[in-house]
């Protein structure tokens, strides 16, 4: 087998090629490769900026919607006056209120106030009371309503008799009053 002869020219060529390859590798890692990571970083920054803008828009929209949605609701500090107003409306609509029990339960940023009313009243008084409650601000939701016809006693004021009424209403109160909202 003929021995492989490495000539000087081949050695020189090999040195030149190895140096070129080494330099290319070194310069690639020193000058070009950082560009890729920098480019990825910049693209990520652009994506982050776009995401932040989208999120900012979402947050702003949510804030606006929330402001509108919270507008009719009262603050926690209005709780007692609210119960008083319900009592006033009931008296005004001739509901013979036997009990009026408010109960508060915290729920996140809000407090749910549940007002349970036990009363006796003619059907139309109840109807008027409910109509007034529906227009009341803050809005109330009637979670349960029960009417039971009381033993029929015809009177002049109430020719159709009275109903035993159990009414459960609730609304949300803001834990903190909003700026500009009058209590």
């Amino acid at each position, binding site marked *: 087998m003929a021995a492989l002869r490495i000539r000087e020219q081949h050695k020189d060529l090999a040195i030149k090629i190895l140096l070129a390859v080494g330099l290319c590798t070194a310069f690639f890692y020193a000058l070009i490769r950082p560009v890729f990571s920098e480019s990825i970083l910049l693209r990520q920054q652009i994506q982050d900026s776009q995401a932040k803008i989208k999120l900012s828009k979402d947050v702003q929209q949510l804030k606006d919607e929330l402001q509108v949605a919270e507008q009719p609701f009262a603050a926690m500090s209005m709780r007692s006056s609210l119960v008083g107003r319900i009592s006033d409306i009931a008296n005004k609509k001739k509901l013979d209120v036997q009990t009026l029990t408010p109960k508060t339960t915290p729920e996140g940023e809000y407090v749910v106030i549940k007002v349970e009313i036990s009363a006796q009243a003619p059907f139309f008084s109840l109807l008027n009371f409910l109509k007034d409650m529906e227009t009341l601000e803050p809005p109330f939701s009637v*979670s349960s309503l029960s009417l039971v016809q009381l033993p029929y006693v015809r009177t002049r004021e109430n020719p159709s008799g009275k109903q035993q009424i159990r009414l459960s209403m609730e609304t949300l109160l803001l834990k903190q009053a909003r700026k500009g909202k009058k209590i």
Partner: protein
Amino acid sequence: MLKGVGIYIGRNEVIAVSAIRTSSGPQVKAFASEPIQIEAPPQDQDEEGKTNSKSKTTTPEAQAIRRVLEKIKEKGAYVTAAVSPSLVATRHFIMPAVPKGDEIGAIRHEATRYIPFRLADSIMDYHAQTNLKNVSSVTVTAIRKDVLQVGLEDLRLGSAKVLMIEPVYCAVGRAFSALRMLASAKTQGFVVLQSDGNVHVTFASGGIVYLSRDFLLSWNSDEDKSRFTDELKASIDFFFKLTGGEVLTQIFLAGAGDLKLWAEHLEHAFNYTIRFDCASFPEEKKIPPEALHSALVAFGLALRPLNYASPLGEIKLLPKEDRCAEPLKKMTFLGVECVAIFILFVLVRLVIFQPMLKQLENENAGILESANRDYPELASRSIEDLTSQSNALRPRLERLNKFIKYRGRPSSVLTSLGKGLPLSIALESISVDEKNAEGGKKINIKGLCFVGSAEKETNVVSAWVKALAANKVLSALFPEIKLDEVSREKKQDMAMTRFSVVGE
């Protein structure tokens, strides 16, 4: 400072010279000679084994080269070398001038007639001059490849890096030229006496070597004198014929032996028509002239990398692929290569990638700039912060929307129930409760119906329930309203129908 190393490999000795170039001319930095010692036969088997294994890696010539380089402290140096002129064939011939492109082929073809060995097995170079008569005067020098290979391997084994191998006459001509001893005379003669008795004669005219031959001395003083004179006379006559009447007036002597004695003898023998001169080294006062004369060939070889040109042409006997690149040239090339690659990468970075990065930076800056106008706090807030704020706001809004959506209007339910109520039906109780957490409601109505006939009462109740189910307000809140229970009951001797209606 530029430095050159020359090695002459003779038959019985190796001479090395390192020379430097100064403003006053070339100077010998160091020189040494070493005999080529043929080793004694081995004493026993063990020694034989060792010698055989050693001879595979080195030769007496290689050992002498190594020693001589160590002596001049140039181990591993880049060298220019020459082998004994008896191993090299130099011939002169004339031929019609041919175009430059065809010159190599034509000379090679013509040289086959003169060179005493096959050119296919040889390395050949030439020096040609075209005169006014469109005739080329060509000197061809060739060496057998196997001889060259042996010399090359010896040099490499002796730690030398070979820049070039050239014939002795080139080195001798370069040495005398560098020492400014060659006058403007058209003809020159060079005689090199070697320690092995070989005498190398070179006669040139106008830079073309017309004659380059060797003869041997027998080391018998009287016999050698007449032989030297006869051989030289024959050579001068041959040169006279070849050149068409050109006369040698000066011959330079170099090499081993008492050159002054030879010069006196030859001048006397030629009746003082030819001047015989030895090399003169005005800068080398400390080195004996005899030593310098013997090292003249190696000195001439050492001058080649110092860019001293030979007046007899630059004959190259080492193929290009076997030549070591000169260190300075090699380093220059590598330096240029480094700079070129660096510039290329810098350009690629600046021309291709930097604008891309700049574009991305501008894009990001543009996005942020326009967004900062609408959302000034954007820059100071992170995605996580915004996401958590969004996540906090969304359930609040959903809670409020759900409250509003399922709030309902109980007054309209009661109104709807009351509006279509037949007179024969009396409601005992109505209850509206929450059915599930999603805000669904359930209604339960209990009542009595009295008409007088069970069938009629049932029909009245059924019709009323149907009317309730068809009512838009009620059906929106309670999609399914049905009669849950119907029974007959007697109350104060009156039979009536009791019923229960469920809507959900």
